[in-house]
């Protein structure tokens, strides 16, 4: 068991190392190919040799023989080069590039748990061996470095030893990526806990205010009663007042301590969060590593000349985003070279420089990262896109930008012929899928003859995202803020029907389809707007759609939790987050929602002129007894109210803050926070000051009733006289009639 774990960990480390070495091989080979006789060449060859050598050792330690063997042959070939036995020629470059690819392929296979057999390694290893053997026979212009098993000389090239020493001296430690993820998640939880602490502080402050008020009340009464009571009563009261004074002072002190602690914790937590985030940052250049190689290979094959420019290479991006960027960037760059950049002859004819340009750029835009790939090629042929859409029976878009959106559909390609290199189609759908997986969006802009530009807009970090919390069908959902274009609040009379679909006007542009979010999700209660006012969230990708929701709750940073391998990707759900109440809210996959919304048949769910149902009023019900809770709940629900359940005052208060309500029904005696304190908290809060509160209790005494009244309750119902009409009529009158 432990040994397996160790082996797995070693293998994971090896894969990482393999990736780095492949990067180094490619980088050095590219540089060497550009300038084979340059002053840096010997250093490049040395680096190549070192990469092959370290990799050989690493492969041996995890017992991966095919890699070990190939690296050994690479080493031999490079040793001959290094020793000046041979010069690096085309053939050697080709085979070494192929070897780097084969190693990268092996890395992918290892990551996917696949076998290495029958891979490109099998074929390349003998070719390298043959090359090495031929080199050995080549007469040397000078005494060659012994080409045998001189392991003392080779096991530790001097350069390597020095570098390792330097790394240790600087205190650089290699940390597995999942550990960094964990650290960030924990730090995120700390930030969420901060929010709770803030509320605790507010609550203590509210208690302090209440106490102050009670203090003033006591003083008044003392003045009123001064003349009446005897000296015994007076001294008893003085004692009581002294105790009360102590309690007040204690609450005030608690409030101050809490405030200071919160400040200290907020400071420490945010500094730590920042440090953790900084630890995870890598330069954008890392994601661009393989691109130059891809451009070189493609341009060679297409006989075009292409220059790759990386802008914003030093912009630092969270590693989770960076990882997710590799594939889409490769697809986009390949696409630009393969379909965008014209042949030198054609470019000359069009008055452009013969060498084409592909610019990969990263830039920060607020809390988003904008990554773009632009080429100065021929641009997207809109007529061809339209023709292709017609051919495939797709609806023809009027707007150019909607035409571009078609390019992201799976299998939609405008390349006149499927080229050998890009194989199957353009791969733009892969780009879209990747962007969506990163909670971002993608956009394509093109000008005929001038070129094409694809822009990915992504949240700056994956593990926490800025999200919009909203309610639909009584549930709270989160929508990544990056995918929200804007919010709408319109009168339902403004909703029109077009082609059997409900739409809302959208400024200058064409009207946007509007659908209730709940019915797209297949939830009950999804039909019929809550009021004549419709609140909707407008998203922009892959198409513009407005989703009508019950209400918007808040916009804030949320901690993204994966649903885990067992649930994986389910329909419209991209992940989950834990709300401050401890409840789980789902993070919606906006692209999937849009797709479902577009596929659904049109329906008239929102427009005015339908029978608009009365808004369902929401009641929060707090009681620590299961029986009472269920009884009251069934009474209220059958009367048509929406009921949210809380097991004590504290939970009720949190529910209220989180979801809001039209009325509160609460037991008096409950653990943690009783009905009286809850009621006081409600009255002390600016937001809920006027919320009707009904106290329900088993205690029947004048004193309790007075206590409830003092705390600001609107009604006081005793359980012994409890029957459903009593409760319902009270609620109905407090809510101004009707459920």
């Amino acid at each position, binding site marked *: 068991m432990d*040994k397996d774990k160790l*082996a797995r960990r070693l293998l994971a480390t090896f894969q990482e190392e393999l990736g780095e070495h492949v990067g180094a091989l490619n980088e050095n080979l590219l540089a060497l190919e550009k300038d084979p006789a340059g002053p840096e060449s010997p250093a490049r060859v040395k680096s190549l040799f070192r990469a092959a050598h370290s990799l050989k050792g690493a492969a*041996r330690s995890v*017992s991966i*023989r095919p890699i*070990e*063997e190939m690296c*050994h*042959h690479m080493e031999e070939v490079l040793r001959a080069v290094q020793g000046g036995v041979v010069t690096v020629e085309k053939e050697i470059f080709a085979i070494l590039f192929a070897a780097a690819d084969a190693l990268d392929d092996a890395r992918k296979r290892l990551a996917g748990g696949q076998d290495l057999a029958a891979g490109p390694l099998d074929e390349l290893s003998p070719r390298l*061996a043959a090359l*090495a*053997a031929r080199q050995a026979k080549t007469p040397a212009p000078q005494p060659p470095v012994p080409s045998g*098993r001189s392991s003392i000389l080779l096991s530790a090239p001097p350069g390597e030893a020095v570098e390792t020493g330097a790394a240790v001296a600087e205190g650089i430690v290699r940390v597995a990526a999942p550990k960094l993820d964990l650290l960030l998640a924990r730090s995120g*939880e700390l930030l969420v806990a901060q929010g709770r602490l803030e509320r605790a502080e507010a609550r203590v402050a509210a208690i302090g205010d209440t106490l102050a008020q009670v203090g003033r009340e006591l003083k008044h009464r003392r003045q009123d009663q001064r003349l009446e009571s005897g000296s015994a009563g007076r001294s008893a009261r003085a004692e009581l007042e002294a105790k009360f004074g102590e309690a007040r002072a204690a609450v005030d002190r608690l409030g101050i301590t809490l405030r200071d602690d919160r400040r200290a914790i907020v400071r420490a937590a945010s500094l730590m969060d920042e440090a953790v985030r900084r630890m995870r940052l890598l330069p954008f250049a890392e994601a661009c590593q393989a691109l130059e190689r891809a451009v070189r290979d493609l341009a060679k094959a297409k006989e075009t000349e292409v220059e790759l420019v990386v802008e914003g290479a030093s912009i630092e991006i969270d590693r989770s985003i960076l990882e997710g960027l590799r594939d889409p960037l490769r697809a986009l760059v390949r696409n630009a070279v393969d379909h965008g950049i014209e042949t030198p002859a054609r470019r000359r004819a069009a008055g452009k420089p013969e060498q084409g340009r592909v610019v990969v750029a990263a830039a920060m835009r607020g809390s988003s990262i904008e990554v773009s790939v632009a080429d100065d090629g021929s641009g997207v042929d809109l007529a061809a896109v339209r023709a292709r859409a017609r051919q495939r029976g797709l609806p023809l878009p009027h707007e150019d930008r909607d035409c571009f959106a078609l390019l992201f559909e799976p299998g939609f390609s405008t390349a006149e012929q499927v080229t050998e290199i890009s194989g199957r189609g353009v791969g733009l759908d892969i780009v879209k899928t990747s962007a969506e997986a990163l909670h971002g969006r993608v956009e394509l802009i093109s000008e005929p003859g001038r070129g094409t530009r694809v822009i990915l807009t992504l949240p700056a970090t994956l593990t926490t995202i800025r999200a919009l919390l909203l309610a639909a069908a009584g*549930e709270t959902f989160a929508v990544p803020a990056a995918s929200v274009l804007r919010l709408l609040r319109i009168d339902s009379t403004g909703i029109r029907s077009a082609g059997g679909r409900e739409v809302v006007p959208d400024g200058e542009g064409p009207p946007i389809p509007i659908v209730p979010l709940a019915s797209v*999700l*297949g*939830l009950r209660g999804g039909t019929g707007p809550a009021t004549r006012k419709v609140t909707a969230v407008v998203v922009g990708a892959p198409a513009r759609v407005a989703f009508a929701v019950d209400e918007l709750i808040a916009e804030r940073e949320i901690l993204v*939790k*994966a*649903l*885990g391998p*067992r*649930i*994986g*990707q*389910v*329909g*419209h*759900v991209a992940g*989950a987050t*834990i709300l401050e109440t*401890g*409840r*789980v*809210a*789902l993070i919606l996959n906006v692209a999937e929602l849009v797709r479902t919304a577009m596929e659904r048949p049109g329906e008239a769910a929102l427009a005015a002129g339908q029978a608009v149902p009365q808004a369902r009023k929401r009641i929060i019900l707090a009681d620590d007894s*299961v029986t009472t*809770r*269920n009884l009251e709940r069934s009474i209220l629900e059958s009367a048509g109210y929406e009921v949210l359940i809380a097991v004590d005052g504290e939970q009720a208060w949190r529910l209220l803050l989180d979801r809001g309500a039209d009325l509160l029904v609460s037991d008096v005696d409950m653990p943690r926070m009783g009905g009286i304190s809850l009621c006081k908290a409600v009255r002390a809060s600016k937001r809920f000051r006027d919320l009707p509160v009904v106290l329900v209790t088993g205690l029947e005494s004048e004193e309790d009733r007075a206590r409830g009244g003092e705390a600001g309750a609107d009604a006081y119902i005793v359980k012994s006289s409890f029957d459903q009409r009593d409760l319902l009529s009270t609620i109905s009158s407090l809510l101004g009639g009707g459920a």
Partner: protein
Amino acid sequence: MTVPTRSDRPDPEQAGRILEERARILARPAAEKSHADQLELLVFTLSGESYALEARSVREVTALADFTPVPGASRHLLGITNLRGEILPVFDLRGLTGLEPTGVTDLSRLVVLGEDRDELGLLADHVGEVRAVAPGEIFDPPETLSAAGRGLLRGVTRDAVMVLDAGAVLRDPRLSGAENRSVK
């Protein structure tokens, strides 16, 4: 040309395996004597029927405080819940054993299973005590049970407690997020 390797000694992996085997043989008599005969079963009820899981396969029993339904997911997935800050899927076995799901009450319990970590929670109405049962007292499940349900069972006790096989429960593909394709 081949790479030279040392072949005069067993490689570390081989050596490790030999040592582990030896340790296992040494440890066997002491460790297995006392509990070998008895299975410790945690009994819980679900819609009036009794089920049991081997206690050592249960990671935890907790109150099901709250859960969030996942639209579009398998009907066996009741929803997801927050277990100490992590997301835990909660499944309802009743759809698999042929019982009608009757909803969730405030008293519902969550039986948490998993190999290295908390993998899933099973809904239970009540969780009883742990009882020891001899393997001989677990009989083959009744023929009347659906084939789908039988796959999850180790057997049934004399007093009709259906003993679930935790491994089979964890491996069952129906206990995942996605609805079976045939259904859609």
